[in-house]
């Protein structure tokens, strides 16, 4: 369960990195939310899991309103992004399995991997829709990252993350693209 959820979260983040179409980005957000929810559920945080799944699904649904048509998954020229997504996963796996210790290996793999691929999405160039999806994904990853801590109201953090993730997709922009 933990491994499947962590891999699903990475796949969701990678879909956001590899997609240019609105459907691909929406699917990425939904899969990311589902994967992170699975991790939260596995760690015994049911409320957080529901919030994260709802946040991912809501953000994905709202993402469908804006962006390039179609799926746009792995368009021509996306090979460097694919390589970086794979390398991020391998580094995160090494970190979670070899360098770090203790419970929560799924969190230790998924959270750095997801944050890394979403940051790469911004650094490698993104349109408005992709940047918005990356922002929502980072919010969800921050939420689930709080479950690694012992204090600081982690469930409330997950709920706040889910609300912000969905809310960011609901924002309408003042101008079409820059000026």
């Amino acid at each position, binding site marked *: 369960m933990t491994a499947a959820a962590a891999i699903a979260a990475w796949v969701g983040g990678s879909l956001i990195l590899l997609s240019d179409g609105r459907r691909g980005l929406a699917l990425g957000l939904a899969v990311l939310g589902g994967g992170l929810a699975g991790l939260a559920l596995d760690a015994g945080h049911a409320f957080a899991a529901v919030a994260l799944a709802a946040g991912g699904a809501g953000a994905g649904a709202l993402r469908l309103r804006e962006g390039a048509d179609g799926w746009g998954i792995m368009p021509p020229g996306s090979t460097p992004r694919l390589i970086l997504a794979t390398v991020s996963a391998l580094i995160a796996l090494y970190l979670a399995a070899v360098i*770090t210790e203790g419970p929560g290996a799924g969190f230790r793999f998924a959270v750095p991997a997801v944050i*890394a691929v979403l940051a790469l999405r*911004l650094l490698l160039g993104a349109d408005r829709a992709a940047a918005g999806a990356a922002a929502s994904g*980072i919010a969800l990853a921050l939420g689930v990252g709080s479950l*690694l801590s012992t204090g600081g109201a982690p469930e409330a*953090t997950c709920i706040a993350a889910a609300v912000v993730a969905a809310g960011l997709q609901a924002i309408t922009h003042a101008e079409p*693209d820059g000026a």
Partner: protein
Amino acid sequence: MEPELAVALPAAGWACTAALRPRPRMALAAGAVFGAGGVAAILFSAPGSASTDLGVSLTITAAARAMLVVAAVALAFVVILAPARAERSTMLRWGLAGLAGMAAIAVAPSLDVALIVLLALFVLQAAALGRRPYLSRLRGPLLAVALIGLGLVFARMGGPPALQRIAAVGLVTGLVAAIGAVPFVQEFDAEEMTATSPMPWLTFVGPLLAVVVVARGRELIPGQVDVLGALLIALGLVNVAYGSIAAWRVDSAAAAWRYLFMADWGLVMCGLGLGVADGLRAALLILFGLLLVRLPLYLWSRQALRDNVQNDRPVNLLVAAALAGSAPFAGFPARVLLLKGATAMYWPLALVLAPLLLLWIPAGLRLGRTLGAPTGRQLFGVAIALAVSVVLGAYPQPLLSLAGL
């Protein structure tokens, strides 16, 4: 209930000013009432005592409370004495949005929540009408959130001490990226409205964010506080040198203002990194001066910058002295405290810092002239800003006491 109200009232004020945009006077009145209520709630919040009315524990530190109060006073100051062509209700709307976000960051139960609030603020600002492309407005800020987020995750992982050091790198570089200082300088357009430009992160939201991130960072990685401090000092020195030289040599006067803010941030980072009381006092004094003196002066210089008017009247020289950090203005005791703290911590650092402080003189002289020839309300505002700077310079203890120092 005060921490909740400190967030809710400015947010309600922002919503009212946004809803009443077609009626600027009503928007201004509504925003002022809610904003004043928010300030009262901040003032009545007892530092350290938790409020659990929303089911989560919300607390505020004395330093964060002082920074919020000073930011609110600075906002009132620039709205009341707004630059000639600026729309007051628009300034208040943006300011209240920032203030609500800052209050939420200050009272957040964890750094994770503060980071999520910061992310929302970044995206909201980027969504507004601006001159720079959307991605260029969002790239640096989101990278900042990602870096701090990675820092948080590394801080919580069990393993070798190197993980905590990586966490310190994430926290410090993320903070620097959030404020847009070197090496994460954001694209800058001199013609862009201040609220949608990178300036609010350097001058308005940044001070509180720095106080919160550094304080929480020290709690998260207690074993690597020295690494956190060393990184802050290193990046601080880079910003001091780069910012003060660029403020002196860069062609655009508007860009020169921004570089001087970065140089000031360099001093703040050094002060926060020292980890001694004098360093913290120096950092907070510089941040108070940034909010109460430099931000208003920058806003009032905008029109003269657009008109390319420069002047050498006595008021310009006084402003130059204030910007250069000379006595009796606020920058002077801050610099003395910083040197004192550096000497106590590691005296060669003071040897490096002392000559770098001289670089503020040419930059200050240059930027003092860019204020043009202020008249009327603007001249009154400049006089008040200088008076505040003198009071802060001569007797900073009341504000430092508010910050618990």
